[in-house]
């Protein structure tokens, strides 16, 4: 089963929920935690451990100027403005290239081949028994998070239980993370901003056909607007975590709630069981 944790709004507690589910499950079964927030991965802060790192590359076109007759077909084919063909030379902007390979396909002179370009790295670690942590890290200056997210998800292929912690927002990185997941948890907070972005995230999950449930974090007990939204959209509220100074303190020192306060383990296990039901998997 593959479970995603997303939110819409940033800072609602995605990584907190992901770390606590993974910590709790790892006590009884093997679990793989995947940090798909590759622009700012943070799960390794909860689970410090030595890592094995591998590079992630994407193919980019290289033009053989001797074979090129500057016909301009590659420029026409490129939907991203990455190639400009002038009378006697070609300009290539690697940061605009999406590695689609279209330019290479249309070149009548076969003057274009692809070469790998590094865009980031993947780290794998085994911080506690039963837990594998896979983190993606986009290189500074690389604009495309998606190839790294694809790579970290591929690394988890075949693992029985995978939890993917998404980036905030609703754009390509989130879509790439949710794609192919059996269910997703949307973590929100009861603020107008939290609800606004939850609405967007619910829409994205629905369009991708991923069943979604809601976790309300930092609840001050006045969650009426969020609850109303969930009722109106037939969304189950899977868990409510209170606004609590002690929880904040545990988080802030990099500890895990379920380790510091083991009574929370049954809450997070129950959350996981509800997600399994959402995904249509019997537990």
């Amino acid at each position, binding site marked *: 089963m593959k479970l995603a944790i997303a939110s819409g709004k940033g800072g609602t507690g995605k990584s907190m929920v992901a770390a606590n589910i993974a910590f709790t499950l790892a006590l009884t079964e093997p679990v793989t935690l995947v940090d798909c927030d590759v622009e700012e991965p943070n799960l390794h802060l909860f689970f410090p451990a030595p890592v094995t790192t591998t590079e992630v590359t994407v193919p980019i076109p290289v033009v053989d100027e001797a074979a090129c007759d500057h016909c301009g077909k590659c*420029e026409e084919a*490129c939907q*991203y*403005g*990455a190639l*400009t063909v*002038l009378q006697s*030379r070609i*300009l290539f*902007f690697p940061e*605009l290239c999406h590695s689609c390979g279209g330019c290479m396909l249309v070149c009548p002179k076969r003057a274009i081949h692809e070469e790998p370009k590094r865009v980031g790295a993947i780290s794998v670690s085994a911080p506690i028994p039963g837990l594998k942590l896979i983190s993606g890290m986009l290189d500074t200056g690389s604009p495309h998070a998606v190839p790294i997210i694809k790579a970290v998800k591929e690394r988890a292929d075949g693992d029985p239980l995978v939890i993917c912690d998404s980036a905030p927002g609703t754009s390509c990185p989130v879509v790439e993370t949710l794609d192919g997941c059996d269910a997703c948890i949307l973590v929100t907070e009861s603020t107008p901003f939290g609800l606004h972005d939850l609405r967007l995230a619910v829409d994205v999950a629905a369009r991708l056909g991923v069943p979604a449930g809601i976790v309300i974090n930092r609840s001050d007990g006045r969650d009426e607007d969020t609850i109303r939204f969930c009722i109106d959209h037939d969304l189950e509220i899977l868990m409510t975590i209170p606004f609590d100074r002690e929880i904040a303190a545990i988080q802030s020192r990099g500890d895990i709630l379920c380790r510091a306060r083991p009574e929370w383990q049954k809450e997070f296990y129950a959350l996981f069981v509800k997600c399994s039901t959402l995904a249509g998997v019997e537990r």
Partner: protein
Amino acid sequence: MKVCITAQGATLESPAEDRFGRAPYFIVVESENGSFEAIRNPYADGGGGVGPKAAQVLIANNVKALVSGQVGGNAKEVLAAAGIAMYAYKAGGSVKDALDQFTKNTLTRS
């Protein structure tokens, strides 16, 4: 010589547009006789990489000079490689005003 002024509308009275790649219109003026053509920028609402693509529009129309508020790095590289001179106009006036200043040679070349 053809001069392009980025514009918010299709006439000489339209306000000049500060941005290059996302300018709604390119007003291309023939400096010899003052005749002009308004080209709608097909990349004004594009997702990304609009700078180089907009620069290609200017190249295809044989433009030799560009008057705009701001030209992004990628577009600048394409325009420079194509030998198109770039002039900065940030006075917030009309296309006509930008053209007058270009003609009087009071604009800074960037």
